[in-house]
């Protein structure tokens, strides 16, 4: 198998008027892996994916996909790429079978092959009993399975999935990821964007995007180990009091509540962060259990996005739950 990366981007930039949606992103995405784009809405995930499949022209930078220039040679890539849009983009007034047949014909899958592939796809994605149903009447999970079935019908080398699970229930998401791992097992490279932490955790590699910039990149495990912060967990009966006390501390960059607990991210350089916090609570008269804890991927995400933004911001504190 080819060992060249599936996707290589250098200084990829895209502006819409005054807005810079993607800002000098460098990417190297290896083959036969699931590579995740994690980022809040508007972080540039969709714009990046659209540039990768030639739908948008980069303002600056270059991107090579499967050995082709994604902008100038986008037509050559069509047969090799499967693209699943964020919004359901199949024809709602056509049946499941008609949608599959149409896509098969558009990709010039030979008639002899067509029937077999569609049958396999129907079985694989549990749609065999829905062939005559109009796509518009399918449930969210069924629509998503149909979308993946059509996106993989021509057996693409690279699958680009733009927030594929944003409208489906947890069980459907589990099944969906099982399908993705099966495809990767067959050698397909998958790029998936998401804002779910559990999904991000399943990826082989991950890029965290924020405001169009790539703020962290690596395997989920590595990202957790390398987090640029220390995480303190606080358990208290007086959560508002604890929160108020914490927000006065210069080193605290972010506070998030998890039930009766608080997660606080502090500067990595902080000396004895747990002692510092305990001292603060003593002074404020708040009784709380304080301990250093292992970072989660969400902490990594918060550290990479919020701390990056506030690095010059002094004691200003932002809370992860209130970001839009």
């Amino acid at each position: 198998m080819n060992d060249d990366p599936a996707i290589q981007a250098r200084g990829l930039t895209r502006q819409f008027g005054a807005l810079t949606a993607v800002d000098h992103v460098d990417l190297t995405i290896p083959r036969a892996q699931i590579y995740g784009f994690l980022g809040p809405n508007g972080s540039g995930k969709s714009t990046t994916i659209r540039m990768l499949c030639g739908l948008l022209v980069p303002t600056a930078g270059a991107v090579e996909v499967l050995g082709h220039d994604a902008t100038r040679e986008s037509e050559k890539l069509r047969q090799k790429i499967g693209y699943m849009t964020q919004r359901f983009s199949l024809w709602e007034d056509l049946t499941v079978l008609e949608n599959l047949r149409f896509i098969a014909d558009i990709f010039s899958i030979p008639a002899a092959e067509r029937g077999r592939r569609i049958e396999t796809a129907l079985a694989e994605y549990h749609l065999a009993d829905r062939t005559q149903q109009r796509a518009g009447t399918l449930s969210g999970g069924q629509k998503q399975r149909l979308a993946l079935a059509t996106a993989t019908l021509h057996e693409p080398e690279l699958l680009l999935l733009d927030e594929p699970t944003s409208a489906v229930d947890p069980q459907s998401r589990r099944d969906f990821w099982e399908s993705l791992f099966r495809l990767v097992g067959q050698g397909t490279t998958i790029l998936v964007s998401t804002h779910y932490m559990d999904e991000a955790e399943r990826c082989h590699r991950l890029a965290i995007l924020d405001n169009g910039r790539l703020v962290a990149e690596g395997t989920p495990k590595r990202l957790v180990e390398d987090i640029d912060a220390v995480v303190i967990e606080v358990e208290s009966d007086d959560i508002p009091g604890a929160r108020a006390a914490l927000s006065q501390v210069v080193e605290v960059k972010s506070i998030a509540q998890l039930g009766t607990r608080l997660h606080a991210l502090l500067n990595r350089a902080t000396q004895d962060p747990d002692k510092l916090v305990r001292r603060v609570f003593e002074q404020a008269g708040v009784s709380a259990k304080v301990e250093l804890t292992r970072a989660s991927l969400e902490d990594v995400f918060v550290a990479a996005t919020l701390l990056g933004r506030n690095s010059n911001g002094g004691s200003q504190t932002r809370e992860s739950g209130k970001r839009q």
Partner: protein
Amino acid sequence: MISPAIAQSIGRIRAIAAKEFRQLARDRLTFGMVVGIPLIQILIFGYSINFDVRNIDAGVVDLANTSGSRALIADLQATQVIRLKEHLQSPGQLEARIASGDLSVGIYVPPDYERRKLDGDRTAVQILVDGSEPTIESVVRGIASPRLSSRAGMAAPDNRLIEVRTLYNPEKRTAVQIVPTLIGVILNMTMVLFTAIAIVRERERGNLELLITTPVKSAELMAGKIVPYILVGLIQTTLIIAVGRWLFDVPFSSNLLDLYLAACLFIAATLMLGLLISTMAVTQFQAVQLGFFTMLPSILLSGFMFPFDGMPVAAQAIAQVLPLTHFVELVRGIALRGAPIGSMPAPLLKLAAFLVIALVLAALRFRKRLD
């Protein structure tokens, strides 16, 4: 043998055409419009656009009451342009009845009609016309002038009468002139709108984002979207011809094939115009607005309604850009004068040129990108 690339291309066009057709068949309202719009329009147009003005309500004041004056009134009635509704006693009454809208025309024969007729210097009969209806006014002037001008009355009144009758020959019905050109007007309305929304709709529904990441080419997409509607257009053409023949007694017998050939070319041209609109509009609403925007000039300037020669130069220039102008010219030649399609190369070439230019423009405007 055709090359595999071309075979694949044809396969993709066929797939898109089949999909469009299926969607059209499933969209009951639109499918109903395929048949409903031409039917309703030909009925409305066929009956209401009527340039033969007949049976205009008229009143008469005949103060002479001679055999000559009675004969004149009888002659006017015989044209069928006017229908004598009332006999009144004074010109004042006549004017009042016209003012109230009960009568459109008043005929006043003065007591000294016979002497005036011989005299020749003064008008013998006065006809009052409701000027608020331009067609009526011109028609009545038409029947009046040759007969009642002083000199005409002197010279050969009978000959003049015959002359006028031929002008309003009851056999020369508007339907015969109107229905063939109606094919163009109705097709122009439906075809442009069908394709004007064809691409915008897929853009709005999100289908286009998927479609443009597939190997389908712009030109294939355009072709695949036009083919089903050419069929729809031919169905509508047949419908109009059938209704025209059955309801309005329009003879379509000669060179029907030429008529269909011209219709095919015109249908393709209007569909392309619609597609061009579809590449410019961002929403379906905009597409429909733009579609309507092309419709009124087409109907007014194409020569369908008003004689082309009477238009200002600028209007004639605009008309040249509209496919309907050339189709009206073709269809009048084929259906009314019985001319073979080959004898009218100018409108044929202009329609073909429109088709090609619109195709190129649409394909250039439609790029397989989102920005």
